[in-house]
């Protein structure tokens, strides 16, 4: 199997789905002639034409709302939001329309769309090109929210999302685009929505994350083994809504210790929910406090390099928490 970057996996996932189903189309800012701000849609307008790869006006609201309508009318839109920092104009379309259409029509009207959103920091993007904002959508029943951390999953979840009958918000981390490579099949495959995966088995503690920090967490786990002989089980959430609680709870039942890692700032990040679920449903299993490694509660990632560095979770910060968890 050939090695692929995360962004190439997304690109070929899009190409394959557009080839498979002519109802699939792309819409967003700069997705056409430019091939996307990060080149995720590179070459697609050449291959499928401007009717299926639409350079939209600068208006995130209608990028999403027009997709809801077209999905309702039988299409399979894959709209894109260039940066999650600019998703706010589409907030109504996503949370009040896409998330609630099936519900409010008792299942008679639905909108199978896959909204790709680029998110995340660590690339020097500053306040408005680094945000996470997954909480807003993970909090909304009716939406499926996925956030792959590897090229294999990036492609497999994207293809599964496009084929799924629910609105899926697909979060892709810009720092992962070109920083990880992995074998990705050229044959058709999907990765199931709603299922977390154990990336690394372990017995001393459970660590949970998603996206870019999942990669950091994995590195920290390796080091914990080699430097301290501590065996960390690593869970990659993959789907943030609805959460795969079974995978998490089963692991905690085995390890009895938990470290949660997120790039998002602390308050009401996804780790809060996971912690609450564990404290409610696996309380008996716990031998130590549930620790969270998060960014500090500040409005966004400041631009100046020392400030950004201060913000981001790192392998060291994660290891510190793991050590403390183990020592407790």
């Amino acid at each position: 199997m050939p090695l692929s970057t995360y962004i190439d996996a997304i690109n070929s996932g899009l190409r394959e789905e557009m080839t498979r189903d002519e109802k699939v189309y792309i819409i967003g800012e700069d997705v056409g002639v430019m091939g996307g701000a990060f080149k995720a849609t590179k070459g697609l307008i050449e291959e499928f034409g401007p009717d299926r790869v639409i350079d939209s006006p600068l208006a995130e609201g209608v990028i999403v709302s027009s997709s809801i309508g077209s999905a309702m009318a039988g299409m399979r839109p894959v709209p894109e939001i260039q940066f999650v920092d600019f998703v706010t104009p589409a907030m109504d379309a996503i949370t009040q329309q896409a998330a609630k259409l099936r519900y409010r029509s008792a299942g008679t009207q639905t909108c199978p769309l896959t909204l790709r959103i680029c998110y995340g920091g660590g690339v020097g993007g500053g306040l408005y090109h680094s945000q996470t904002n997954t909480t807003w959508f993970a909090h909304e029943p009716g939406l499926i929210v996925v956030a792959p951390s590897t090229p294999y999953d990036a492609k497999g979840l994207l293809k599964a999302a496009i084929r799924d009958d629910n609105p899926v918000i697909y979060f892709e981390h810009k720092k992962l685009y070109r920083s990880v490579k992995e074998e990705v099949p050229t044959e058709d495959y999907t990765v199931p929505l709603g299922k977390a995966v154990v990336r690394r088995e372990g017995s001393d503690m459970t660590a949970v994350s998603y996206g870019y920090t999942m990669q950091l967490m994995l590195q920290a786990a390796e080091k914990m083994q080699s430097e301290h002989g501590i065996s960390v089980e690593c869970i990659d959430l993959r789907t943030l809504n609805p959460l795969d609680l079974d995978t998490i709870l089963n692991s905690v039942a085995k390890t009895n210790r938990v470290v949660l890692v997120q790039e998002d700032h602390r308050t009401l990040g996804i780790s809060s929910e996971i912690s609450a679920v564990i404290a409610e449903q696996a309380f008996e299993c716990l031998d130590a406090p549930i620790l969270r490694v998060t960014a500090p509660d500040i409005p966004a990632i400041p631009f100046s390099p020392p400030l950004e560095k201060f913000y981001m979770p790192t392998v060291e910060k994660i290891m510190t928490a793991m050590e403390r968890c183990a020592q407790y």
Partner: protein
Amino acid sequence: MATKPKDRPQAPAANAGMQKTSNGQAPLPEAKLKQIYSTMLKCRTMEEKIRILFKQGRFSGNYYAAVGQEATEVGCAIDLRPTDTIAPSHRDFISNLIKGTPLKSMISQIYAKKTSPDQGRSSPAHCGYAPLNIITPASTIAAQLNIGTGVALANKMQKKDDIVMAFSGEGSTSLGFWHEAVNFAGVHQLPIVYVIQNNLWAESVTVKLQCKVDDLSLKATGYGMPGITVDGNDAVAVYRVASEAIHRARIGGGPTLIECKTYRWYGHSEIDPAKYRDPAEVEYWKSRDPLPFMENYLQKYKLWSDDFKKQILDDFTKELDEAIEFAEKAPFPEPEEALDHVYSFDIRDRELNRKSWTPTVLQK
């Protein structure tokens, strides 16, 4: 140098087109005129009945009557095909009647019964109907118009000649969503007709505080689409203007923005006494009631008889009473149905959600 903006590129053409068909030279077919009238009469009858039911406390929630606006609603929607789409707002319950949603389903919606198209989920006036492509409305102003714009995009992509009729109030035009959708339809020349029902009030806010212009169809200028203002209480005028716009949309000629000047007779909703309005204004508009206006029109063309009206009323009242009885007797949804239709995978919903207030760890 400073240059004067070029004149509105498309509106004149549209207005020109309008002259040909809409200034009354060629009367509409008799059957159409009668159909318009009878449909308006049914709408009026139904809504006045719903208002009474509300006052009697026979259903809970609220209702947003379009009484006074029937010429606009009927004139715009009467010729739509089943495969055309309507994007209704909170005040367009009657668009269901016009398009053909079964009365029993509609009145079930009023009563929030299991037999309503949404099985009791939305508030009374918010009625959609999937089989006839009526979008189930959110309350969010302009939301359906946005979704409708997407339906129009799909129609175009799928090379269908179905069109979309999107209603909004004049208040809605201030909202960002509204702008994004209409601008988008202009760029992509979508098969959609935007109808602004300018009834002068958005809840308690006068149109003077909503927008600086008097004729809201002027907004079309900035979107590069034909815009036209029409007397929304003149069903025939509305019908002609709408027909042309629908036709243009159907043949790939792109969107149109129509402003219908009309009036909401009652409060914003049934709980609004609307004291913020000048009674003289209300009286003036009641004197321009679209129904007698249409009666006169029929009389002029010798299509009228008192019996004609009585027959419509008798038949419809019977049908309506049956629908009300049906809805009153219909069951409410079961409480746990609240958990359905969150996702396409139903069973999971229930499992997931039972945990919400009964922690599993303690159930054992």
